[in-house]
């Protein structure tokens, strides 16, 4: 069953095209990571799916209905990038206020316990630390016993322990059959949680596949070497010099080595390593010219 869907969605803000003919199907029980640099259109896509914004052209659906219709949002929980909790309200009051909007909310005590907020119930949100506030904002997405939660960079500003706790919470929700769509800057987070990754760049879906496939498909390698002066070689990106070591990315390390040797440059300490998803994704986004590149899928990648 499809929980949320975007069909050929284009969204413009005046002259700027934030999303360009984006397609996305979110199936029940999936845990999907949405990846992309700032300005890629992640938040715009999420805002369209939760009914905060209107599409310019195309169509979005939430549980088969229009997300702008409140009834479609009954099984949705959302944590926006910023929540701006009312500073004078207490933690318990904020939970009660949000609970009042749902037919069958999770009891307050259970929710607070699940997110480690029990001790803070009487505290005004203005007095919480950034991390505590973020935890509350994420907890609010689960108040209404949702079937889909949309989390826009949920762990921004959390320390390592809090982040791991939150991941456990998300995994638990997913294990119980919940559907999750989360955007993140932490690639570690996507690799840790998601089964499927959608990479957005300049408003287009650049890739939509499993984490493994995305990692493999770009075949990006990180190369370190010591060389006095590197000639201009094809397929090389992100060249930087750290403590005399030249670091770069290449989409074809074999070709790079051949080119390097042929160029006759004196080099030493050549090191080629597989990359993280982050590097792969940087390579994909910078390699794309927005109008011509088709989205990469498992089929095209295998071809």
């Amino acid at each position: 069953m499809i929980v949320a869907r975007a069909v050929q969605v284009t969204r413009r803000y005046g002259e700027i095209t934030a999303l360009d003919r984006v397609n996305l199907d979110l199936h029940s029980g999936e845990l999907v990571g949405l990846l992309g640099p700032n300005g890629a259109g992640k938040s715009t896509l999420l805002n369209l799916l939760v009914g905060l914004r209107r599409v310019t052209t195309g169509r979005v659906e939430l549980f088969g209905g229009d997300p702008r219709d409140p009834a479609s949002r009954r099984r949705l929980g959302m944590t926006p990038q910023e929540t701006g909790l009312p500073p004078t309200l207490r933690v318990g009051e904020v939970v009660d206020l949000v609970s009042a909007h749902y037919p069958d909310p999770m009891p307050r005590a259970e929710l607070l316990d699940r997110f480690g907020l029990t001790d803070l119930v009487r505290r005004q949100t203005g007095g919480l630390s950034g991390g505590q506030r973020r935890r509350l904002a994420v907890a609010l997405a689960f108040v209404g016993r949702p079937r889909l939660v949309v989390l826009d960079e949920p762990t921004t500003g959390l320390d390592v322990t809090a982040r791991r706790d939150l991941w456990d919470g998300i995994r638990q929700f997913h294990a119980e059959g919940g559907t999750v769509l989360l955007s993140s800057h932490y690639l570690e987070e996507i690799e840790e949680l998601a089964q499927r990754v959608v990479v957005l760049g300049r408003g287009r879906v650049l890739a939509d596949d499993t984490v493994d496939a995305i990692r493999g498909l770009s075949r990006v390698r990180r190369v370190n070497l010591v060389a006095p002066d590197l000639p201009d070689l094809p397929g090389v990106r992100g060249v930087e010099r750290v403590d005399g070591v030249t670091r770069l990315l290449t989409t074809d390390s074999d070709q790079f080595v051949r080119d390097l040797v042929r160029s006759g440059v004196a080099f030493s300490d050549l090191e080629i390593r597989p990359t993280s998803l982050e590097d792969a994704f940087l390579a994909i986004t910078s390699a794309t010219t927005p109008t011509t590149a088709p989205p990469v899928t498992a089929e095209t990648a295998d071809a």
Partner: protein
Amino acid sequence: MRLALVHTRYQLLETVRIPIAVIGSTFFPTVSMLFFVVPFSGDDPVVATYATASMVTFAVMSTNIFQYGIGVAEDRAQPWDPYLRTLPAGAAPRFAGRIAAGLAMTLLSLIPVVLVAALATEARVSGPAFLAALGTVVLIAVPFTLMGLAIGYALPSKAATVVAQVIFFPLAVGGGLLFPPGDAPGFITAIAPYLPTRGAVELMWAAVGDFRVNPTSLVMLGVWIVVLAAVAGWAYRRDEGRRFS
């Protein structure tokens, strides 16, 4: 309806937790009562009653211009409102809650003025007149609510604060709120009927005493309500268009 009440409750809670915000809008009318009405006309029942009605009008105006003008502008700058709109309810319960809470705060802001009048002056009203005054308060809150909403939805919060502070005093003086009925300086008598404060205060005077309302003031009050509603509606839709479309 139930949700509107929930929002009313939490809006009130948010306001009451910062009591200075409540005291602020009732401060000027209450101080005017203490410094001008009590020493100069406190022992004349008729003058004191009219003066109290003027200060009540003043308080209704300033409370609404400030609470909506600044409150709405500040809320628009916060991501909390958009978050609430991802919940399974439209914008209506929140808006209704804001208006209900605003009316409650308006009535609350009148208490000090009325207390000073009752305890320290000879101002007196009969039971029916008091009820009529109460109804009039709700009625005259309409144009100033709309004015506050227009400011709040049209301007960023810093600008809204300045505009609210700039307009409330001229509206009070220009409308003749600081003078007894029929005893304002000539230029104020000339401009007053064209300000919304005049129609409002004349309705208050008529509610508590034997005052004949000037038709021009009343018609102009109607015109103000229509114009302010149009501006507030335009500003609201423009804001919706910017943030939610």
